[in-house]
């Protein structure tokens, strides 16, 4: 059963949160205002589909930088697990540990799978003001790739130019 949370829908300001990005180091969403953010919720470190998905994003960091966008991964794994996983895949973006209370941020975004005890495979693209502009929950076994994220970031750019 999925959680639902209206505040995590497109057009709403994304719920703020603070999570550890490394042992003893926190990451806070509201401290990154002023640039697009891409929040990638994924089920588990080291799982095959997640690894393919995050590997593609890792290759594309320069593309995301073209939009001045910041990408973070979020799962219920702990910081030490994230550290090992990140090193093994040579990931160059932060992985946030939604570990304790378990899945608290995923629940606030309506993407926690109660029956499984981990996150959906879900992506949120936030504009510079923190408003959710694109939200996608993929079938759990399907790697959604990056095209949806890039389209969303392009839309932000076009809207900014038109505004």
């Amino acid at each position, binding site marked *: 059963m999925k959680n639902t949370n209206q505040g995590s829908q497109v057009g709403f300001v994304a719920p703020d949160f603070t999570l550890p990005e490394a042992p003893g180091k926190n990451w806070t969403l509201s401290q990154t205002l002023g640039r697009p953010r891409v929040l990638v919720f994924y089920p588990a470190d080291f799982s095959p589909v997640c690894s393919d998905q995050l590997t593609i994003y890792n290759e594309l960091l320069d593309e995301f930088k073209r939009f001045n966008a910041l990408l973070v991964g979020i799962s219920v794994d702990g910081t030490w697990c994230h550290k090992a996983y990140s090193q093994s895949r040579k990931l160059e973006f932060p992985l946030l540990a939604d570990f304790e209370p378990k899945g608290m941020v995923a629940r606030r975004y309506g993407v926690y799978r109660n029956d499984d005890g981990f996150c959906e495979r879900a992506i949120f693209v936030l504009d510079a003001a923190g408003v959710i502009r694109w939200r996608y929950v993929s*079938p759990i076994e399907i790697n959604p*790739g990056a*095209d949806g994220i890039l389209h969303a970031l392009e839309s932000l750019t076009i809207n900014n130019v038109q505004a």
Partner: protein
Amino acid sequence: MRLEPPRPALAPPLGPEDHIYGPAEAVVELVAYGDYQCPHCHTAHPITQSLMEEFTGQLRFGWRHFPLSKIHPDARNAAMAAEACGDKFWHMHNLLFTDTGKLSRENLLQYARQVQIDPQTVIAAWDQNRYGELIRRHIASGLRSGVNTTPTFYINGRRHNGGFDKQTLTAALLQAIAEKSTASARQNPPT
């Protein structure tokens, strides 16, 4: 409810810039985005070769580069070496898949010699980043086309979401052939 994954379109379709193996009039087209250092691509290679034999005359195969350079540091050099081989591309492509992991610069130059390409041509391509822009275009087109791993396959212009074992790919190709026959029959009904 189980959601069907989307099947993004290959963008752009195969064109003059692409490496294509097989007849232009083939009824089914298989395109792979891949990485010469990717173990899954090495697994897929003999399968695609075998399919080319089984579907002789009916199938053409296209390859686009999608090197995952951060985890496969030799993949980009290998892609450039393949491009530097010009009309020996497919010969080089096959050699690059013969020995997983042996893609050092020295290995790549040895492969070039095997296909009778002057190693200096390959060295110049690396030094001048001669195919960097082409590879960037391949990666960009892969992103637009929904590439989500390597290899990612497209059959008649639509992403193949299933596995790339021979049985699954064969079934998908047969289905594509059947769909094309049906569409053709609709356009040209018997008189």
